[in-house]
Structure formats: C-alpha cells, structure tokens
C-alpha cells in the first residue's frame, strides 16, 4: 500500500527550476532511499513532503502530493497538523538548547498529547527507548541536549521526531556527520522504526541505501531518473545513468 503519492511535482526557487515532473510512490512501513549527486534535488523533494519549503520565501511547489490520499499541497492544508504526522530529522543534529527531557517533551506538549506529567514522562521514556538512547541518558534527563556526542544528539533528534508518533519520518542525510559506529546504530534504529513508521531517507552512501532501504529513487539534475525496489536498482537498473552512478562512474 502506498503512503505517499507524488504526481507531477515541480519546484522552483525563484526562476530556477529545481525539480521536474516528479512522480513517485512511497510504500507504507518501508524505507525509501533517495540517492543522487549533490544538488540534484533530493532535499528539495524531501522537504516537499512536510511542506518545509514554505519557510523559503522564493520557493514554489506545484503538483499533487497525496499522503493518505489527501493532497497536502493545497492552501487549506494545516501545516501544523501535517508536521505532527510527518516528522523530520536533519543532516546536522539540531537539538534545542534545552534539557534532554524538554527536547523530547516539546512536541507532545505543543500538540496536547499528554494529559498528565506521568503520561509525558512515559512518552519521553518510550521515545528515548525507541531511539536506543534511553540507557545512555536516563540519569541525566535534566542536562542540556547540546552536551551529548554527535551520534547521541542525532538519536535525540530521532527520539524527538518520534515523540509525536508520526506516520512518516523524513531523514535528510542523518548520518553524514557521524562516525561509522554511530552510523551503524542509526541504521539499526531505522530498521527497527520501519515496523511502525514509513521512512524516507536521503543518503549519499550507496551502501547505506542498499543496507537500510527496500525502495530506492535515483535523482539527477532535478529529475527522478529511476525508482524501484532497492534490489533491482542496485543489481539490475533499467537506466544506464543509474548504473553509472551506483558503480561510482560519476557523481
């Protein structure tokens, strides 16, 4: 079943077109990887899915993006509700300069998800456990989130994203600032999270895409060149360009 269906998506930064007629379906409770050379529009596409491009004044998004069969790319869409359903993890870990606890509790609080302090404590604990961070930080929940290591910070950001129980989690190169061990931890985590969430991940690492994803989309110069099961894309792509990129002949 498809969670997200993008049809004829065109994105413009001012006069410059960044995405051309993107059609892509994203299946539920699977990991979809977006790969492609730098500047090809992966982040731009990802940010369309939770309307983060709204923040950029010159950015215009055209086309239809259906999530649960509802077109989110209309004026009447309530972006606050949308972003509650679609979480996001950024390339650079960006915890709030507040305590660990407050980092996680912020989302549930602004969305009124907890009736009591106990319930909130429970959400914080569950989110940290799911993000495989609980054991490392359970004794220092009142310390600042910025005091963690890079990998811990990124897992904190993942915990923050899942605290509001989103249906979809968008990740923009979540491991690019991390060492191999932290990367392995996050990849394991992604594998775990896909049981409950639909995940879209942008990555520059072919091996990472191959390891974590079930579906892969290859972007080039603002166009979606090819999309299909990860197995097929990596073993037997239809397009020569895809083959070249995956084997490292360009990009």
């Amino acid at each position: 079943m498809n969670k997200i269906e993008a049809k004829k998506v065109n994105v413009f930064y001012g006069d410059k077109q960044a995405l051309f007629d993107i059609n892509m379906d994203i299946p539920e409770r699977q990991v979809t990887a977006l790969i492609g050379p730098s500047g090809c529009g992966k982040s731009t596409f990802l940010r369309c899915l939770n309307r983060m491009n709204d923040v950029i004044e010159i950015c215009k998004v055209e086309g239809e993006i259906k999530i649960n069969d509802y077109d989110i790319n209309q004026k009447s869409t309530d972006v606050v509700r949308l972003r509650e359903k679609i979480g996001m993890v950024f390339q650079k870990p960006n915890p709030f300069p507040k305590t660990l606890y407050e980092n996680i509790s912020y989302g549930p609080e602004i969305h009124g998800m907890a009736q009591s302090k106990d319930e909130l404590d429970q959400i914080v604990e569950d989110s940290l456990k799911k993000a495989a961070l609980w054991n490392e930080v359970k004794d220092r929940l009142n310390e600042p989130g910025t005091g963690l290591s890079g990998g811990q910070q990124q897992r904190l950001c993942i915990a923050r994203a899942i605290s509001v129980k989103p249906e979809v989690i968008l990740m923009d190169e979540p491991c690019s600032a991390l060492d191999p061990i932290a990367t392995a931890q996050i990849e394991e985590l992604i594998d775990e999270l896909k049981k409950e969430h639909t995940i879209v991940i942008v990555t520059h690492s072919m091996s990472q895409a191959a390891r974590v994803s079930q579906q892969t989309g290859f972007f080039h110069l603002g166009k979606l060149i090819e999309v299909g099961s990860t197995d097929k894309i990596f073993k037997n792509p239809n397009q020569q360009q895809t083959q070249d990129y995956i084997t490292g002949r360009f990009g």
Partner: protein
Amino acid sequence: MINREEFLNKRYKAEKRFQMYGKTAIILALLFLAVFLFKIFSTGYTAFQKTWIIVPINYDPEFMYLDANQKPSMEDLQDSEYFDVGIESFAALDQNANEDQITDIKRMFAFIFEEEIKDHILSNPDDFGKIVEVKLTASDDLDQVFKGNYPRDLPEERRRVNDYQLNIFDRLNSEGKVVSNFNFSFFTNADSREAELAGIASSFMGSLFSILVCLAVSFPVALLAAIYLEEFAPKNRLTDFIEVNINNLAAVPSIVFGLLGLGVLLAVFGLPRSTPLVGGITLSLMTLPTIIIAARASLKAVPPSIREAALAMGASKMQTTLHHTVPLSLPGTLSGTIIGLAQALGETAPLILIGMVAFVNTIPGSPMDPAASLPVQIYIWAESAERGFVEKVSACIMVLLIFLVLMNLAAQMIRHKFEKKWN
C-alpha cells in the same frame, strides 16, 4: 632572486610593530582613564565628608519665650522660636563680640541652624533650661576651609570668610569642637542653593524614575518591533525602508528628541513639565532604535536550524518564535538594552529641553513629580559659583559612574544566567 631569509624577517618585524601599535593604544586609553578617575576622585571624595561645629547651646526659657517655672509640653517646644537661642549661644562664643561680629558668627553656620537647635531639644526635652553642646552644620565656606580647599591666603576683602570668622573657627578647631562625619545628607537631601546642604536625592530618584519609564516604554516596543521585522515581516521595499530609517534614527542627535518631547509630549499631550515621566518617554525615543538593532542582531544570530527543528515538530510560527528564537536571543537583546539605557542615563540635552533642569528642592516620590537627573545636576552644579559645589560635581559624577557600573554588572549577571540556561 629575493633573499627569503630577509623577507621572512621583515614579515616578523611588521607583525611585531603591529602588535606594538595595539598595545600602545591600549596603554594610552588606560592612561586617560586613570587620569580622569584620579581627577574625579581626588576632587570629589571630600564631598562625602561633612563638617560640623559643636556649640554650647543655651536653651534658656527666656530666649524661647516660654515659662521658666513650668515644664513645657512637646507642642510648646514645637511652636517655640529658636532664632534667639541660636544668636545668644553664638554671642557666647566671643564675650566681646559686637552686633556685626555676632552676625559674622551666625554666618559660620548653615542657615538651618534653627532647625538643628530645635531638633535637638525635641529629641531631648530634658535639656530645657540647660546649656548643652549641639552639633551644627558648618557653612559651606568653613566646610571648605576645614577640608583645606579654601584659599586662606587671599587678601581678606576678596574672601567670603573674613579673618574674624577664621579666628573663631581656628580656636574652636583647636578645642576639638570642629568634627567631620560621613555626609549622609549628600544622599538624602534634594538640591539646595546652599552647597553644604545640597544633595543628590532628587536627581538620583529623577534618574532612576526616568530610566524605569524609559525601560518600560522602549523595551516592549523595541522587542516587538524587532521580532516582527526579523521573523514575520516580508522582505520588501517597505520593510527595507523601515530598516534604513531605524538605523538613521539611532544616529539622530539626542537634542532633537528633546525638541520632540517638548513639542509633542508637553505641548500636544500636556504632560507635566520637568517630570521623569516625560524625561523617560523622551529618552525612550533615543533608546528604541538601539534596542531594536541589538534585538534584531541577536535574533539573526539564532541558528536557523533551531527554527527548522521547531517548525518540523509542528510548532506554529509564533510558537517557534516565542519558545525558541526569542529566549535564545534574549541575552544579546538585554545587553543591547542596558547599553541603550546607559546612554540614556548619561543624556543631558533632551532633559534640559523638557525642563528637567529646573531647580528642584523636593525629592520626587513618583515619575509624575518634578525632578532633576544626575547628569543635569552635574551641569547645574558645575554652573554654580560657590566653591562648595566644585567637590559636589565630582561626587555626583562618581555616583553616576557607580550607577553605570552597577547597571553593567546587572546586565552581565542576567546574561550569565541566561547563557547557563540555554547552552
């Protein structure tokens, strides 16, 4: 071919020279500061001392127009006259004094000697009918004589203190009857025409109220303006125009704001003249652009990734701003505010224009009462001819400087607290 060795040497030398220039500049600046502070302190510290002369006061019922055979009630003492008590007691300092000389002796004391004599008997009613020693404030000239600031060697006709007075004073001094204490009245008295009585209470309170009004008006307005311009306003011609004009406003000479206060606050709105209320609002026009600029700069310095994080969590624009951006920018905003207020605290020109230069001998109890302000007080005293005001000017500058230092310390503390909390 260039000699590389020599080339390198030249570079190192240039580097050393550059550092030297920097050090010299800093030493020069410190030197100026030291000279300035030394001058202020050495002329000003005596103002914190006050000279008293101890005089046997004769509480003779006859001089008080009271019945000698009956213990007077408090009301009697309260209503009684003390001028004659004073004059008779002064006359007793020199048995042979003639009329004129008694007047000379009287002039050795502050004109409030009657009050002081009265205050003593009111708090010691048992001294009625007795001769007791009472501390009276010395005149400002004798105060200066005692502090060694008075040119005693001038020819007599060019002095306000004559030889007769000096003789009496020296005699009393050698008997240990001249004492000096910490000058509390400098802090508790309002301004006065008599230097020995003049204090900074009125101008201090005036400055304090002005600054509070200024803070209350400019901080919220500036913060909201900065938040709107930085976080919400679309970037277009109009906002560019506003931005340029805010920057221009920061460069407008303060006297222009004084004229604005005069023309608008006093003339159009009819607010009361000479009050910290008007002074504070006028000053806030000056601090407004300073705070807006500081607040915008510190809002800009908040990393965009924090805003993105909040937005991606589903926070609305307003929540993102109020929960994250503004708190993070607050330390910078506060330090900008303090700088603005410190500038305002030292402002004289606009306050003179709105009438805060008037002679005020009462202590304001609210921003609606007439008051002076510390810098204006300095200006007023510096204009006065009496020798006694010279030290007061320096003392007032000291108080102003201490006020400024305290403000900066407060700002630092607030900053520190916030920074600990957010990082």
